[in-house]
Structures are given as C-alpha cells and as structure tokens.
C-alpha cells in the first residue's frame, strides 16, 4: 500500500472513529459520521452495529450516498428498523451518533435551531430534530465541526437544542447526556474543565494553541499536557478513500457553487454505486 499524505478530513474521521466503542447502534446522518462509524468498525470497535440510514439498516454493507442508505438495505435484504426501535436504543443508551451542530458553546450546549432569538430568528435553521432525546439519555455525546471559528464555537449558544453542562442539566439529569467530545478541524476537545467547561485535549498536527484561541469565541483552557492528534495510518486513509467514492466528505466541507457542482457529479455517479452488488467492493 502506497503511503499517500493524509488530509485533515481523514485525520478528523480517524479521530472521530477512535471515540466509538462497544456494541451499540451507530446512526449515519452525515458523510463524516457515516465514515467515522465505518472506520471504527473496521479498525477499532468491531462490535458496533452500524445503521445505513439515520434510522435503519443494521449491519448492512453501505457507503455514504446522496439518496441516504435505503437502497442498500433493500438490495441486501438488510435488517430494517423503525423509529420506535431507534428511540428505544437511545433511551437504553445503546446508540451513538456524531452530531454536527451550527453552534457549540463553552459548556457543550449545542444549537441547530436558530441564529438569534427563537421567536424572532435572524436565521431560522432546521429545528432541534432528535438532539434533545440524545442529551437526556446517552452516556456519550459526540460533536464535530468542520469550520472551527468564533461564530461556531461560541461563549453561549443562541438556543439550546442539546443540553450542555449547565446548572439546569445538573439538577434535571445529573451526568446523563452530558457532552463528551468535540472534534473540529483544529483539535479534539473535552468537557473536563472546571464546571464542565470545554478544554483542549489534543491539537491536530501543525495547529498551535494561538490558532485555536483566536478561532474560539471564549477563553479556552487546555488539559495538561495537550496531546497531538495521532495521524491516521495509511490503511485508515486508504479505507476512507475507498469507502467514499462519491467524495461526500469533501462535499460536506464545501459551500456555494463548488458544493453545487460536486452534488451534480455525485448524483450522476451515485447510480452505479447503488446498483453495485456489494457496497464495500469499490463500485466506481
């Protein structure tokens, strides 16, 4: 296997994969989340029960696609699940998901609902979806951001779609559903600071403390010592590239016309991916 240099998306996905463990359902909503699950199962946590879609298709051989994963489930006669099954797994703490919020704050509260006040939004986003269920039931909450900046990593979120380490959480829920980890394009963060504050656990190779501080909307403390995020092995890098033939991880990182062109190309290429007999065999 040739050793090609890895890119930061591959480093992030590998760091995300290392956070998953045990025999739990892992949901696939975004390309980064789906690839983190696939890498984790292949290299670090073989007992994971990956879902091919946000809600179904346990143990199906799948790849990230635009049309979600339902075609893989049907073609392979995979284990279908329903929403009741998924929420029972959440209530039982047998579920993990990588959540990509619009904002996360120093206490680990997250927002996907609104920029500005909820009743009078500056930008209305999508609504809290199932995040409130996750932050009231799971023992591990995983967040990632592709663009760590002072507007995404903020002192206080505009709306708490997910509960961070606040006094209200402590009173209502104790430690259940508390934020565990944030992986960004700059580093890996936990919430082990004073009063459950976000702190720097790892910096990615080549990223210094000053860069993280200036990209963060509040004063960050660092765990001591701050580690460097391990580089992904060449096997992991090759695996990620093989398992994302549509390049949806790159599409997720793009904005504007670049993203639109990528969508068109991915959509054209998707058909042969969905029609391949087995998703893992490198259809394209």
């Amino acid at each position: 296997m040739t050793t090609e240099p890895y890119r930061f998306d591959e480093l992030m996905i590998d760091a995300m994969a290392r956070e998953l463990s045990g025999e739990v359902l892992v949901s696939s909503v975004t390309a980064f989340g789906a690839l983190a699950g696939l890498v984790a199962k292949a290299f670090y946590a073989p007992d994971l029960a990956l879902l091919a879609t946000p809600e179904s298709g346990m143990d199906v051989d799948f790849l990230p696609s635009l049309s979600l994963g339902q075609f893989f489930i049907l073609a392979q006669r995979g284990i279908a699940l329903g929403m009741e099954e998924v929420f029972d797994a959440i209530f039982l703490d047998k579920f993990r998901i990588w959540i990509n919020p619009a904002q996360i704050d120093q206490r680990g509260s997250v927002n996907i609902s609104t920029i500005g006040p909820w009743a009078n939004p500056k930008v209305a986003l999508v609504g809290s979806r199932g995040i409130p269920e996750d932050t009231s039931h799971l023992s591990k909450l995983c967040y990632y951001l592709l663009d760590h900046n002072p507007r995404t990593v903020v002192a206080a979120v505009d709306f708490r779609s997910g509960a961070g380490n606040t006094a209200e959480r402590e009173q209502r829920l104790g430690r259940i559903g508390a934020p565990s980890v944030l992986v960004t394009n700059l580093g890996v963060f936990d919430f082990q600071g004073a009063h459950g504050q976000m702190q720097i656990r790892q910096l990615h190779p080549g990223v210094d403390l000053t860069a993280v501080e200036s990209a963060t909307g509040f004063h960050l403390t660092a765990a001591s010592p701050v580690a460097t995020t391990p580089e992904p092995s060449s096997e992991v890098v090759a695996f990620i590239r093989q398992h994302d033939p549509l390049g949806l991880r790159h599409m997720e990182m793009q904005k504007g016309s670049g993203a639109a062109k990528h969508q068109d190309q991915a959509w054209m290429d998707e058909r042969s991916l969905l029609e391949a007999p087995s998703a893992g065999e490198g259809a394209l």
Partner: protein
Amino acid sequence: MNKLVLLDDMAGQIPDGATVAIGGSSISRKPMAMVRALARSGVKDLRLIVDVGGPDVDLLIGVGAVREVLYAFVGFEFLGLAPHFRAARQNQSVAFQEWTEYTIMAGLDATIKRIPFIPTHAGLATDVLSVNPAFRVIADPFGGDDVVAIPPLSPDFALIHANYADRAGNGVILGDSHVDVLCAKAAKTTFLSCEQVLSSKDLQNLGAGIQILRIHTAGVIEAPWGAHPTIMAPGYRLDLGAMKDYLHQASDPDLWLNYTQEVIGQDHETYVKHQGGALALKQRLGVSST
C-alpha cells in the same frame, strides 16, 4: 371493499383550518402528489404536524396554505435550509411550535392510546421546553425525578405515501418507515397514496411487509411517482435537478408565482409529463439492482 379516490377529490375533503399530519422524512418518501393536490385545492389555515419535514412543509407554506407548523425539523438535508419555512420563521407570517423527533411520536401515540399525556425525559434542560408551550414538566407521582408530559397530537387527516396498497387500504412501505404508521393510526382520516395498487391477494403475499392496516385508512390513491422529487426506495432516488429547480423557483416571488401555476397547479398526470414522463423518470431515477 373499494376506498379508491381521485387525488383532487381527496384534497377537496380537507377543509380550511384542518390539522394534517404528513408522513415521510425530509427528502425521503414525502407524499408530494397529495401535498401538491392540497396546495392546488386552495385550502387555507392548515395546521401541519410533521416529525422531519422538507419540501412538503415548505411547499404548503409557500402557497399560503398554512397557519401553524408543529415540527422537529424542516430542511433539505445536504441541499440546505427550506426557503419558505425559513422566511416564515423569520418574518413570523406563520405560527410555529418546535417539538422533537420522539415527542412528536409520543404525542401521536398519546392520541392512539387515548391518554392525556406520555411522560419522558426527552428535552429536559434544553430550550425546546422554554419555547414550546405545549409541554409541562411535572412531578413523578411515584416519587422519582420530574418528567416532561407530552400532550396528545390529534391530526384530523394524515397523508402517507406507500409503495403498494390495496383498494381496502392496506399499505406496504419498503424503505424506511419513518413515523408514518403512528400518523396513520392517530389521524381521524388517513389518506394513503401509493406507487401501485395491488389486488388484496397480491398484497397479502407481502405478509409481514404490510404496515398500514385498512382499519386506519379512509381513502386510497394510486399515484405513481407520488413522492417525486423526494426519494422513494427502491423505485427511485432523489431527483436532484427537480429539487434544485424547486429551490431556485422558491428564491424569487415572480418565479414562485409561475411555479405554483405551471408545476403545482397542474394535475398529477400533467406534472409527471412535465418531469419528462414516466419513461424518462425511470431512466433518470430508477435503480435497477433493487
């Protein structure tokens, strides 16, 4: 038993002010043919209940048919935010209640079970509880921690699009089932559209695949391509071009007015023709291995 009804006759039965639950999830298996028929009917002041909404909610807001939306999510996934939903949230032209995925399910379930509420921990310590007046935090009568009481959600109508149905109103959903079965059971009147009507004998052969029972169904509509432009596994994938066209037309009032007349305003057969016809759609969107 024959519950077959024409698409536009179905829409004509839904009066102004009705509460309508819509199945599917974001860009997957939305009952778009029924949604477009509802938009064409000129109905006003609808109250929509949707777990994960997308072009369904957005289109009905866009034609001015909606008074209030109860939702956990409304968006177009990788294609971004829902334009009319976003505008209506920001200019407050429509009322909104933000729920969550499970609490929508629990509210429907409370109606099905005819109980006053369902308790859960979902949403505790989040701002959803602060902005949504429907919920109550109550003491556990057995002495444990406080719980959130989720009140019943009682749709007058549910709109569900399935792969197959028979004339009696049994339905088969082959892809992800989302919260459609809960919607079908909770609504007073459930309309089931499908890609294809099968004989009851052929449908019965699908056995455990039957999820929608005829005891919950009031009307059946045969509407091939009825989820277009959303995903309908295994028959067809997302029509990216049609979705982008929608987003483009929705971005400008004049374009949108034209779109409501030329695309939404046409009957379903004409709509399918405008999308290139069944053959071209099959070539563009069909997935052969499934």
